[in-house]
């Protein structure tokens, strides 16, 4: 296994950590929708930054990739905004 694969594994471990922490906070703030939404915002922000760094390290970061992560992140944020009754 070369260093590229090691780096990739580290990246995905970091992503799992981001998801785990986000899930823990989301559960912790059950019945507190504003805090849950802040948790979603933080988790999605971390996810987008992870995507940028992951693709940059693999020399595959492009405007298309950046836009894709941003759009998907916003979609997820708005999905939660709709369910958590967050008014924009």
């Amino acid at each position: 296994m070369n260093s590229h694969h090691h780096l990739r594994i580290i990246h995905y471990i970091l992503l799992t950590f981001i998801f785990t922490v986000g899930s823990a906070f989301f559960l912790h703030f059950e019945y507190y929708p504003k805090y849950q939404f802040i948790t979603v915002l933080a988790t999605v922000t971390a996810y987008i930054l992870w995507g940028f760094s992951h693709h940059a390290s693999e020399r595959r970061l492009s405007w298309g990739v950046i836009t894709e992560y941003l759009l998907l992140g916003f979609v997820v944020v708005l999905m939660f905004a709709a369910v958590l009754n967050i008014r924009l």
Partner: protein
Amino acid sequence: MSLYEQFLPHPHLYKHGHHRRAKLLHLPALASYLFFLLSLIFSISFTSIHLPGILGYATNINFDDLVKETNKRRVEQGLQPLAINSRLNAAAASKGAYMFTHNFWAHVAPDGTTPWYFFTNAGYEYRFAGENLARDFNDSNSVVEAWMDSPSHRENLLNPNYTDIGFAVVNGTLGGQETTLVVQLFGKPLSPNYLATVPSEAATAENARSVSQPAGEKLTVTPINNPPALENPAASSPAGQILPAVNIFNASKGVTLALGLFMTLLLAIDGVYAIRHRILRLSGSTLAHLGLLALAMIGIWYTNVGAIV
């Protein structure tokens, strides 16, 4: 443009020499999902404000069930059930009206008015006092369950120092949204003979508080200009009378889960295709996207309606 290309990965190479995802996962499609969700949220806001009869109020919350559920949990813990107190009911109603009138939802008002003001204003001189608040729930049991799930509210609900309970379930418009507020007050009077309490057959529960006034602590009351009363009857009304035409929470949940599932399926198909054909795409990580969407759907699935404070 074939239907195949909309839903499935492109089987042939494109201009930059790379296979591409299904068109419904391309950037314009993602942007359209974003626009759809924005439209949904703004439509809910608009309908809530301008067409209140459609979204309506949550209405299966009622006084008797709240008392019953609260006291049930107290009895289960070996505690005495609480007695309904008419002055605490009046204090809770005043607090509910005050929140609608002053457009806030919290234990302490923006003008500094504390929960204890409403106790004394209703003529309830207390030795112990507490308050629990909830909003946007669909039924009484869910409200009490939510309080029981929160350590601070549970502590109030199972506090042996309380002897009396009062409730208000009030509909109104808060921050431009129609909502149902539940105010739950606990107390123990300074003098046992001071207050007239109403024994209740349903008094098999007690309420929790997230704010309490401990015994012997000096009460701080911030004077307010307007008495906490139903200043605008149109702004708030007793709950349990208006049935919503649409349960907006369930509708939003269904729509977002459907969209999430749709995107997840497209990505999963793309991922399998890419692995089988050993394709390296110049796009975001399919595995990471799938993880995010799966997590989002699980979170949305387990999201509860209602909030407490």
